C-alpha cells in the first residue's frame, strides 16, 4: 500500500476535525455542537449526497448493471448478519449477537459520505446509484436479525415482541427519516435535471466537504464519549469491532470485482460492506429487539468501527482496490 494515501487521508481536514472532536472529549473540554445543529448538519449531508447522486444519475442515465448492483447490495445486507451472528454467538446470547450482527450488516451513512469526500478529493468518479445501494442496505440486516432470534427462540418465542413486530419493522424501514430523505433527494436530483443542479450546487456541492468537517467534529466528540463505555468490554467484542470491518470490506471488494465496478464504486461498495450502522439500525432495534443491549452495539459501531473505517479503513480498502484493478 502506498503510504502517502494513508497519510493524505489522515491529514485531510475531515479526519483532522474528527480527531479534534475526540481530543475535545478526552481533555474534558466543554466544546460541543448543539444537538439541533448536529441534526441539521446530518440532514444537509443526506440531502446533499442524495441530490448529487440523483443529478449524476440524470447525467449518466440508468444502465443494465444498476439493477444488478442494487440487488446484490440488498442481498449482502441480508446475508452479512448471518456470518456475524454465528461468530458472535460463541460468546453472546441470541439477542445481543443478532443486534450487533444487524449493525454490521447494515451501513453507516457518515462513513459512506466520508468515502465520497475521499473520492472527491482524489478526483475519482463514482456512480450516483451507489447512493441508492446505500439506502437499500439499511434495512435487510434488521429483518435477518429478527429471523435469527426467532429461530433461536423457536420454543419460547419471547425474545422479540410478537404480532406487531413485522408491521412495526416494515413501517420503520419505510418511514425511517434518513432513508426517506436520501431516496427522496436522489429522486428530486434526478427529476430536476441540469437546471436543478445549477440551483442546488452552491449549497449541496461547493461547501460539502467543509460542512462534513463540521459534522465530523461533532462525530468525534460523540464517538469519544462512547469509547468510555468500551472499558467494560472484553477483548472479544473489541476484536470483532476491529476485524469485522476489513473482512467484510474485503468481501465487498471481491463482489465489486465480480460485478466489474469502477474503482470508485468498488470503494463505496467496500465501505458499505465494511461499515456498521449506529443510527438507523440501533433506532429500529430498540423497537423490534429491545432485549438486545444498546450499550454493546452502539459503542462498538460508533466508538471503534466508525473511527477505524474513516481513518485507516478507507485508504486501506482503496489501496487494495488500486492494486487489484491496476492491470
Amino acid at each position: 500500500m502506498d503510504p502517502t494515501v494513508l497519510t493524505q487521508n489522515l491529514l485531510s481536514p475531515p479526519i483532522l476535525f474528527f480527531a479534534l472532536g475526540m481530543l475535545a472529549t478526552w481533555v474534558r473540554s466543554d466544546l460541543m455542537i448543539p444537538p439541533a445543529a448536529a441534526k441539521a448538519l446530518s440532514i444537509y449531508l443526506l440531502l446533499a449526497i442524495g441530490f448529487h447522486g440523483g443529478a449524476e444519475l440524470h447525467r449518466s442515465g440508468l444502465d443494465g448493471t444498476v439493477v444488478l448492483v442494487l440487488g446484490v447490495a440488498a442481498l449482502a445486507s441480508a446475508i452479512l448478519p448471518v456470518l456475524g451472528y454465528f461468530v458472535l454467538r460463541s460468546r453472546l446470547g441470541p439477542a445481543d449477537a443478532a443486534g450487533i450482527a444487524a449493525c454490521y450488516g447494515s451501513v453507516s451513512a457518515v462513513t459512506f459520505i466520508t468515502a465520497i469526500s475521499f473520492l472527491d478529493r482524489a478526483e475519482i468518479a463514482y456512480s450516483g446509484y451507489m447512493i441508492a445501494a446505500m439506502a437499500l442496505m439499511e434495512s435487510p440486516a434488521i429483518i435477518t436479525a429478527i429471523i435469527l432470534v426467532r429461530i433461536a427462540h423457536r420454543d419460547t418465542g419471547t425474545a422479540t415482541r410478537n404480532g406487531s413486530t413485522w408491521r412495526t419493522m416494515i413501517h420503520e424501514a419505510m418511514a425511517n427519516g434518513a432513508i426517506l430523505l436520501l431516496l427522496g433527494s436522489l429522486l428530486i436530483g434526478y427529476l430536476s435535471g441540469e437546471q436543478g443542479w445549477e440551483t442546488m450546487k452552491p449549497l449541496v456541492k461547493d461547501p460539502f466537504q467543509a460542512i462534513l468537517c463540521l459534522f465530523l467534529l461533532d462525530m468525534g466528540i460523540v464517538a469519544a464519549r462512547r469509547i468510555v463505555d468500551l472499558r467494560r468490554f472484553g477483548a472479544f467484542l473489541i476484536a470483532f469491532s476491529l476485524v469485522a470491518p476489513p473482512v467484510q470490506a474485503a468481501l465487498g471488494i471481491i463482489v465489486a470485482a465480480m460485478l466489474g465496478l469502477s474503482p470508485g464504486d468498488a470503494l463505496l461498495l467496500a465501505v458499505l460492506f465494511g461499515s456498521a450502522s449506529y443510527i438507523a439500525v440501533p433506532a429500529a432495534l430498540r423497537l423490534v429487539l429491545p432485549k438486545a443491549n444498546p450499550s454493546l452495539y452502539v459503542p462498538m459501531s460508533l466508538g471503534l468501527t466508525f473511527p477505524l473505517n474513516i481513518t485507516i479503513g478507507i485508504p486501506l480498502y482503496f489501496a487494495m482496490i488500486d492494486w487489484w484493478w491496476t492491470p
Partner: protein
Amino acid sequence: MTLRPMKRVEIVVDTLHLSRAIDRLRQAGCDGYTVLPNVAGYGDRGDQHADEVSGVSTNAYILIAAPADQAEAVLDAIRPMLQSYGGICLVSDCYWLEH
C-alpha cells in the same frame, strides 16, 4: 379561586418511543399533557447523552395532570412500555387551578 386535587404523572421514555407512548396515553383517555422531546439522563440503562441524531440516546419527558382515575389508566397504559424499553414514571399530588 378553585383548586381541584389531581394527580401529577411524570414519564421519561426514549425519544424513539415518544409517539407510541402518546398514542397509548390518548387511548387511555388522557386529555392533556406537556412534552419535552429532548432531555438527557442516567438510569439502569446507563447514560442517555442527548447528543446525537438517532434518538437512541435521548429521552423525552411527559408531564400529565389528571384526575385520580384517569391517572390510573395512564399508569396501566404506560407500564408495559417501561417493562419492555426502560424509562420511569413518577406520580405525585397536585392541585389544578380552575379557570
